[in-house]
């Protein structure tokens, strides 16, 4: 995942303290647990197939 965000998790510590979603908060912890479970789900193959198709289509058509 790294390299995707220019500012990964910027200021998160301070930010979350202010909004009550830090690791001291039950809501904050549950929110991350909920989300992490979704992020780590297996990604369906259809997306890789789709990108491959888009790639092939483009190099085939040479529209530029």
């Amino acid at each position, binding site marked *: *995942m790294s*390299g*995707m*965000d*220019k*500012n*990964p*998790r*910027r*200021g*998160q510590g301070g*930010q*979350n303290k202010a*909004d*009550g*979603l*830090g690791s*001291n*908060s*039950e*809501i*904050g912890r*549950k*929110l*991350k*647990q*909920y*989300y*992490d*479970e*979704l*992020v*780590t*789900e297996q*990604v*369906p193959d*259809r*997306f*890789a197939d*789709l*990108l491959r198709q*888009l*790639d092939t289509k*483009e*190099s085939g058509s040479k529209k*530029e």
Partner: protein
Amino acid sequence: MAGHDATFKDDLIKAIPSLRAFAISLSQRNDRADDLVQETLVKAWDKQASFQMGTNLKAWLFTILRNEFYSQMRKRGREVQDSDGVITAGVAIHPGQQGAIDLKDFRKALETLPEDQREAIILIGASGFSYEEAAEICGVAVGTIKSRVSRARTRLQEILGIDGEGDFGPDAISSQVLGSVAVV
């Protein structure tokens, strides 16, 4: 002449898990979420030229996905929920013994939030965006995001019967009190 370089494609692939997580959080349905991700990837691919290198690709993709979600909702004739100024009916979920909240209860509570609050608290509390980035993604002011996050958090606390920061669940009495507050 600049076609789609491999880096862009790789970055899209890397972003898919977070895009899916956000899509599921928004739509609450896996099948619809996957369609949203697919649409987002196609749109991103077509619009690559309009993406400015060096800016935040993840935020850009989240913006596309979010717009797609709301435009699909409108097409389905569903009113987009706007919780500003609206008091939504509370649904109290009683956490299990010792105030331990399991993920199922949390998910249920999250589902009861209006979309604008749910997306705000997800973007800030889970996806790792700053308030500025979340404001840009949602097309609203930073202050609006802050107030949505704060209302979302308060409502989740009410529904789940927990108060404030740093606590590990309520005792029996405060649980009852908060429970009755939540059904008002």
